[in-house]
């Protein structure tokens, strides 16, 4: 089978989330659906060396993330699994080129995280308190620091949560199974409603 670049045709991507049917509730917590923004994942014992060779900095330990360049976040989900996410949707060429460069590299496997996961960007100072309602892991500002990654259940859906910062304000990135995106959006909107 020929090489198929999973990052191709970004203009054809569609989020599974339908915001027309979702009630918008006034809250100090704001959520943005970033599901169609480019991202790519790599796994395998050659993944770290491959990213280093392509000038992508990687966190030193599993379950950490870091920001680099303008609007790019690298998550290290295990010793040998990495995701790259564009939070401003401006880094498509970089991500597509990185994916193409991975072709034929030994001990390196691409991950289908673009099409398997939805992504929300969540901001607001009460975000940690809101998560206490839907998540068993403590994501409050005192314990959940910038650069931490937590892989757990959020509103009973398996999710990856990380905190990053841009322009002196912290935000949370949440990845979850794309099939549950509508439910999760509504569950988080509902949980946010009390923080007006």
């Amino acid at each position, binding site marked *: 089978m020929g090489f198929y670049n999973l990052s191709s045709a970004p203009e054809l991507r569609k989020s599974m989330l339908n915001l027309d049917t979702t009630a918008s509730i006034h809250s100090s917590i704001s959520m943005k659906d970033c599901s169609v923004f480019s991202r790519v994942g790599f796994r395998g014992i050659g993944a770290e060396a491959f990213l280093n060779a392509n000038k992508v900095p990687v966190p030193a330990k599993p379950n950490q993330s870091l920001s680099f360049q303008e609007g790019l976040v690298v998550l290290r*989900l*295990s010793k040998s699994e990495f995701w790259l996410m564009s939070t401003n949707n401006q880094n498509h060429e970089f991500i597509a080129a990185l994916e193409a460069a991975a072709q034929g590299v030994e001990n390196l496997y691409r991950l289908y995280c673009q099409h398997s996961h939805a992504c929300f960007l969540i901001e607001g100072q009460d975000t940690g308190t809101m998560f206490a309602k839907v998540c*068993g892991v403590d994501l409050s500002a005192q314990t959940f620091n910038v650069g931490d990654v937590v*892989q757990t*259940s959020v509103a009973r859906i398996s999710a990856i949560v990380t905190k990053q910062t841009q322009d002196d304000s912290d935000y949370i990135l949440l990845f979850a199974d794309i099939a549950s995106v509508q439910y999760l959006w509504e569950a988080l909107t509902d949980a946010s409603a009390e923080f007006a």
Partner: protein
Amino acid sequence: MKIMNCPLNGPRNISEFVYGGEVKTMPNHQTCSDKEWAEYVFYSDNTIRIITEWWYHAASGYWFIAERHTASDEILKTYDPSELFNQRVDFESKPELAEEQSV
């Protein structure tokens, strides 16, 4: 709530984990008998002892190994599979089939 300690993610609610069966040596599926394969896939001893098992943390897609007492259900130890498996397990490639006869 029962808590299990994931070697990668730390303590998590047991509902995030999936049982993956006993850790057993996989026989060579090319050469083993049907009985050996069935023993590997379907049968377990079911005795009271400390058992070594595969467990899966669903939220992170991470397989690891746990040692559990089958009577008390106490989880004594969890660790990364690299402690037991540090290289890829390969079986020799399948013998080539004889070419089909053309009719």
